[in-house]
């Protein structure tokens, strides 16, 4: 735990920039900010979603990872074929811990399979479309899927393979299978984020709206941007069932194709991970008239708040009452655990550098047990995730982002249905329910905290040296670097193979996990007795 005075953020920033070559220092100084929230909730402008400087030890991945790995990966019955050399398909094979639970033991589940065209030199030279077509045929013969997604890796775009043309051609041959391709080559954009957008586009144009019949139910909604890492979606499903919402589909944790295909039938979209899926929420609103708002099921209070918002949106008295009763019931146990752990964790410092929303969401859980987030930042987010959607209009679109397709969406002449009148929307606003809004991470963080976009290894080392945090949250690549330095690292991508952390049960899991990490004695084993006190003062002298 930090002893003495916590250093000024501005000094830490200076310490970081000192080592950089001039050009790099100029760039990073715009991506490292000392937070300041004014009375209107306005925060300073941060530079985000720009390319990582070559040669920097970055946390970031690529568009393919964002598209195949993040957004589509968690779906169990879309057969996913990676078109390219073997690596990409291999590394994205089961490594993200998206849990799934087929409805019956015999139901389709392609999750444990990695399919690839394993492109060889010949295909690089002469083109890989022929092999891709053959691969699709072989895949259909073995798996009989409803839908196939084709995911492009770097060489595909460069050699000019047209995965979309292949998809169309194969769909003609196999009319019962919905086949679609993603141009998610790794070099697109500047991070995973480009891949999210590409995935959103294709899911919207080729999947959503394909089926007319959805789930029956009174209060139907989709949850967007929840990927069921460590079983989070299972906990959210439990809550939805208990409170009487009809969860039509989750994009995309524990999900099925049919749920996506009929997702336009609902009356509300709630968004968890704003970064990875706000596109789909916006497009569905424009085309089908489904309003969306931001929720957060990470943190017990945040979960309760989100549930209340959802109930208020539907405005049903019984629903509101059920939600309230449920929250009271659940909070009894949560509060017991929380109080116990708060006593052991209060005042300790956390840092979060992860994702496009987790660095924000998880601050809730730390706050609940009295811990302070002294520094945070995203790996691949945009300015709106930091500063709020109010800045969306003023975000400069650079060359790297311009290459990512923006789809023009119009009202669907048949299936557009207004869910809320202007009057009702105004009423909701009065109740504090802001539709199509997200205020970002910074306005919820304290002044003088340090916000860092696209944090790299060297900067992380300076941070821990200056702030000596009690826990550092990031991913697998950072995990052992931190732990070798004696700082526990909590992985917020994979949850260190535990979880769930969402909802009420998840909150308790997380409190206990953080207690384990920040109060452990294992780090006290680091030094051997002779390293602690190297002086030789023994009374027994060997050479006498």
């Amino acid at each position, binding site marked *: 735990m930090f002893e003495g005075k916590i250093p000024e953020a501005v000094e830490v920033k200076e310490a970081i920039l000192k080592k950089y070559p001039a050009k790099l220092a100029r760039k990073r100084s715009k991506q490292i900010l000392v937070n300041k929230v004014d009375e209107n909730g306005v925060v300073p402008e941060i530079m985000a979603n720009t390319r990582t*400087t070559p*040669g920097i030890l*970055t946390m970031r991945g690529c568009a393919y990872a964002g598209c195949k790995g993040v957004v589509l990966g968690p779906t169990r019955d879309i057969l996913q074929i990676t078109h390219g050399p073997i*690596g990409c398909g*291999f590394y994205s094979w089961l*490594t993200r811990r998206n849990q799934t639970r087929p409805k019956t033991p015999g139901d389709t589940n392609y999750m444990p399979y990695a399919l690839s065209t394993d492109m060889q030199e010949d295909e690089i030279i002469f083109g890989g479309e022929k092999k891709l077509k053959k*691969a699709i045929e072989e895949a259909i013969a073995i798996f009989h899927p409803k839908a196939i997604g084709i995911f492009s890796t770097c060489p595909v775009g460069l050699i000019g393979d047209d995965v979309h043309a292949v998809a169309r051609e194969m769909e003609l041959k196999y009319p019962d299978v919905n086949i679609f391709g993603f141009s998610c080559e790794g070099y697109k954009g500047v991070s995973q984020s480009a891949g999210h957008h590409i995935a959103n586009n294709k899911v919207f144009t080729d999947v959503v709206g394909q089926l007319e019949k959805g789930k029956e139910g009174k209060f139907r909604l989709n949850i967007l941007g929840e990927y069921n890492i460590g079983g989070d979606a299972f906990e959210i499903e439990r809550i939805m069932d208990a409170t009487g919402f009809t969860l039509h589909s989750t994009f995309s944790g524990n999900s099925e194709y049919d749920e996506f295909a009929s997702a336009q039938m609902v009356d509300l979209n709630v968004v968890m991970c704003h970064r990875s899926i706000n596109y789909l929420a916006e497009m569905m609103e424009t085309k089908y008239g489904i309003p969306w708002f931001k929720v957060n099921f990470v943190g017990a209070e945040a979960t309760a708040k989100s549930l209340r918002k959802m109930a208020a949106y539907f405005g049903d008295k019984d629903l509101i009452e059920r939600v309230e009763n449920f929250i009271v019931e659940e909070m009894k146990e949560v509060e017991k655990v929380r109080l116990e752990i708060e006593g052991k964790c209060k005042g300790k410092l956390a840092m979060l550098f992860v994702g496009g929303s987790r660095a924000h969401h998880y601050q809730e859980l730390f706050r609940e047990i009295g811990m302070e987030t002294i520094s945070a930042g995203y790996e691949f987010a945009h300015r709106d995730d930091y500063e709020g959607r109010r800045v969306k209009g003023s975000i400069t679109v650079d060359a790297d982002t311009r290459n990512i397709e923006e789809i023009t969406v119009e009202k669907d002449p048949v299936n557009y249905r207004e869910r809320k009148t202007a009057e009702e929307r105004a009423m909701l606003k009065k109740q504090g329910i802001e539709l199509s809004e997200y205020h970002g991470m910074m306005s919820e963080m304290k002044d003088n905290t340090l916000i860092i976009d696209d944090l790299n290894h060297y900067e992380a080392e300076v941070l821990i040296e200056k702030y000596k945090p009690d826990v550092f949250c990031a991913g697998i690549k950072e995990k052992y670097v931190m732990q070798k*330095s004696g700082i526990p690292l909590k992985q917020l991508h994979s949850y260190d193979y535990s979880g769930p952390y969402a909802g009420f049960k998840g909150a308790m899991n997380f409190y206990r996990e953080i207690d384990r990490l920040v109060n452990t004695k294992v780090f006290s084993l680091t030094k051997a007795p002779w390293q602690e006190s190297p002086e030789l003062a023994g009374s027994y002298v060997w050479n006498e």
Partner: protein
Amino acid sequence: MLLRHTTEKIEERSALTINPAKTCQPVGAMYAALGIHSCLPHSHGSQGCCSYHRSALTRHFKDPIMATTSSFTEGASVFGGQANLLESINNIFSIYNPDVIAVHTTCLSEVIGDDLKQIIAKAVTEGKIPTGKRVIHTNTPSFKGSHVTGFSNMTTSMVQYFSEKGKERKKQVNIIPGFVEPSDMAEVKRLVAEMGVKGIMFPDTAGVTNSPMTGKFNMFPDGGALVSDIVSAGDSFLTLALGRTASMSAAKLLDTKCKVPCEILDLPIGVRGTDAFINSLRMAAGVNVPESITFERGQAVDVITDMHQYFYGKKVGLVGDPDQLVSLTQFLTDLDMKVLYVVTGTPAGPKFERKIKEFAGENTIVKYGPGADLFAFHQLIKNDKPDLIFGNTYAKYIARDEDIPMLRIGFPIYDRVGHQYFPIVGYRGALRLLERMLNAILDRQDRDAPEERFELVM
């Protein structure tokens, strides 16, 4: 069933790989580069490659794996990656200051056709490489070979860039250990030292990817082959290359470049595999094998003779990397086990198949190269169920579905520790393999035995 869509009926596939039994070249090159002291591997391509490789290696070793990337965007993919690499070199030496940057290509930079030699030469001319520092490279297009050949390519590049033939031959032997664990490399070094021979091992990840907890992160740990040693490898009187696929190419290059003769051996896994290694070392160096090594050997053979009944006739399926598979097949066959299937995604070639069949007999089914995957392996298992399987972590899905005991060998192992610290090479490694096999076999027997046949002494 997790792999519920895997059918018993085997349909011919020519285009689709399902559940690969290999991964791509760059990850092997990255691992090999970590075996040079104070070296930062650099991935020349889009940053996803580097992220995936670092993640895979980190999950496998549970240790920090540091590497940088040229972070290609679409612009670099169109105009070439020269500017990105030059900028990278500049930043890496200013911020991380390694002694060596070891660059490997990716499918992206290969398809564009970046000429790494020329770019590195330009970095030299532009003064981007500080005095005494080195930048080396290897070509690892992902559409060829596998992680094993990528390892081989980077090892070969070490010879290409560093090894020099001096004035006189030195009394030292080069050991190229192959794509094995840091624990294995340490064990081979121990055996060489025990023999009283001066050995030069490269790459050498011992102490780098199984580093101790000290309370202080060290980006460049104490381990790793010194550049000066790889330079002097050109003066050695012999190279022992352990494993054809991973080590032969570097050994051959030392021969042509520096006239250091080489012997290509199998990995010293199992009794006879280790015998061949120790014997070659003995003959070449003209030394007697110390009693301590013969003693270790005797202990391994003792366990084999003591527990033979549990090995005899047991059917085994192997999936993994070619060099390990060859030696394992020999070892298991020596125990009177029956090796049914040997599968590797690495294009190991007909010589590999011949060797396996030489050890295990003509009936053993051998599959290698594109299309030889875990799906095919699983289908073979469904048709004739073995008593034990060897594979990386991904094989556990098969082991669970088919209820077969499994030994984790190879890359990657994401779900257990041990491989980093305890070798499977040498006689001690053989002993460990025997123990692990017996545990798996006997635990299964204990689990399945009817009450009246539940044995106290085994």
